[in-house]
């Protein structure tokens, strides 16, 4: 049907809390094409992780409620699939790298135990408890172990034979993140969600991980949705960037053009906030993220926007084309650009 591997349309997600209904995602739109890395960029609480959870199906429902929208992955709407089919599809085609390498590996099993189980699981379906006990359909351990070693080597882990028998606590953060990348590569997924995988790491380590992801993942032709708050990291890895603010995708476009010439006032503010090596002044954005229990009417950015006018207070803008492959949701773009 389409050449997109992932397309999110009009996603709207609410959370039911003690204090009322939090309208966390108002309108998320997202497209990822095969072999493409897309950066989903935004500040804390903008809804980027919630979006990822919707795709992965790990959003707790309730308290969350998906009000409307479609998440089309490999031509299937994930939101309308049955749980079992959806799990099978995700297992076949999607993978995930978590944010915090320190807590994302099971502390009481060795790397080998964790990887081997995963490899065996991907090799044969429906193992169940019987398979666990080695009763049926359980591939032998040796080839799985070999695959594990190959994968660890593939993610540039020195001396994988030694690492494979360690417990997570024995490894540094960078090492653990490499192990997690190796685990994400176990299935032959075509799509990978990376949720701030380098935020917890030092810059020199972060650089190694980014290099690795660029080389290895592009080598395999995997499409990536890379979630980050760091524009620099997104620039390093992604071909396109989607900027989220307060539950809306406010701007999307090819990375370099978007960073050189941002269209949405929030993107402009965000880029102007980053301290730069050129010693350009950085100003920040006035105000704070709105309260999701009582989000502002109209454009959610209008209380912080210096271009805001009457229409911004009343009508929520939608994404519209502002250049080649570029979209932004702002009423005022023509006024100030």
């Amino acid at each position, binding site marked *: 049907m389409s050449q997109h591997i992932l397309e999110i349309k009009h996603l709207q997600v609410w959370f039911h809390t003690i204090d009322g209904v939090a309208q966390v995602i108002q309108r998320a739109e997202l497209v990822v094409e095969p072999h493409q890395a897309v950066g989903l960029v935004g500040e804390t609480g903008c809804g980027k992780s919630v979006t990822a959870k919707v795709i992965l199906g790990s959003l707790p429902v309730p308290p969350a409620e998906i009000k409307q929208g479609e998440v089309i992955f490999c031509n299937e709407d994930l939101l309308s699939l049955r749980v079992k089919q959806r799990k099978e599809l995700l297992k076949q085609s999607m993978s995930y790298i978590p944010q915090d390498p320190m807590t994302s590996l099971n502390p009481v099993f060795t790397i080998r135990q964790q990887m081997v189980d995963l490899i065996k699981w991907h090799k044969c379906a429906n193992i169940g408890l019987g398979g666990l006990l080695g009763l049926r359909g359980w591939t032998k351990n040796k080839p799985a172990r070999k695959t594990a070693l190959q994968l660890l080597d593939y993610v540039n882990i020195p001396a994988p034979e030694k690492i494979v028998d360690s417990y997570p606590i024995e490894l540094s953060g960078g090492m653990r993140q490499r192990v997690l990348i190796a685990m994400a590569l176990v299935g032959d997924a075509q799509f990978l969600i990376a949720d701030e995988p380098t935020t917890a790491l030092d810059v020199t*380590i972060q650089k190694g991980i980014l290099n690795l992801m660029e080389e290895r993942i592009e080598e395999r032709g995997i499409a990536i949705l890379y979630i980050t708050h760091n524009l620099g990291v997104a620039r390093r890895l992604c071909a396109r960037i989607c900027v989220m603010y307060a539950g809306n995708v406010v701007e999307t476009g090819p990375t370099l053009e978007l960073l050189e010439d941002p269209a949405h006032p929030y993107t402009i503010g965000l880029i102007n*906030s980053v301290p730069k*090596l050129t010693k350009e002044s950085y100003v*920040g954005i006035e105000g704070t993220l709105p309260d999701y229990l009582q989000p502002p009417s109209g454009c959610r950015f209008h209380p912080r926007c210096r271009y805001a006018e009457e229409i911004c207070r009343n009508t929520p803008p939608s994404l519209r084309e502002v250049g080649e492959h570029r979209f932004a949701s702002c009423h005022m773009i023509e006024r100030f650009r």
Partner: protein
Amino acid sequence: MTPCKNLLSVESLYKAFLGKKKGLSRARTPAIKAVNGVDLEVKRRETHALVGESGSGKTTLGKTAIHIYAATGGTIVFDGRDITQLAGRRLKAFRREAQMMFQDPTSSLNPRKSVSATISLPLRIYGNISSGQRKLRVEELLATVGLPRPFQYRYPHSLSGGQKQRVGLARALATQPSLIVLDEPTSALDVSVQAKILSLLANLQQEHDLTYLYITHDLAIVRNIATTTSVMYLGRVVEQAETEDLFSNPRHPYTKALLSAIPIISEEEKRHKPAEVTLEGDIPSPSNMPVYCGFFSRCQEKMAECQQVDPALVQVENDHWVRCLRFAHRREAERTPYPLTTKGQRS
């Protein structure tokens, strides 16, 4: 050098943490040399940045320099006075002159105390002022850091990260210190908030004649706010220079690697970065440091001798110091006009 030019100067400072006790015996695991012979000069009304990755000892250095931790060795001179051995009442008196602002906005505020109780604690301890005056002073401090008056009745859980850091800053300013150690004050914040806090810090420095020791891992910030910079690795300063000089002409392989790892968002920024360097491996554990150059295991420019000699910090240009064997050698060969001295030896 007049004693008053430097507000803080630190000479061959050491800070070791005892290892964990092993059961009932007196034996301990090896001590961790978190700060291993550091020299530092912070000039009045200027900002000196301490840069390094986690485990480099930069936070420990910051805390030891203002006597939050007692130094294991070396001397700390603050405003012309040796404060290394201070204790008791004189230590308490010194405390009001040097304050600290912490990295974690949540952990640095007591969740059970209101904003006004938090800010007025130092006032209570030092000032003999009435509670009415104290209240006025708290409101004044809140205004200084850009928070409206009603915030004094709030508790930390109802504040955003940026607001918490402002409260932390107000508390640090309460005693009217001349030096503030800023320990990654913005690393937990979003960039749009970070920018606001950074400009607040810059304004306060002007208005209150403050001196900052700014601890961070973000070199882009350093470039924008610091006059002088020390790069730390494994408890030592590996390079120290004026910030402009450091960025335009980095000497130590680690500094180059750090600079090249900065994520940038525009092409112009690229011109301020050195050629690509990618480091391998991790920082060695500070509990078993090599006797030779600590950076050897990750260095891209290492030589055979590096595994035999522990290089000293040498001056390669005016006020540009590097701890690398390559420069110790080159300087001898080239007979550069700068005297071959090592820090800590000069008087």
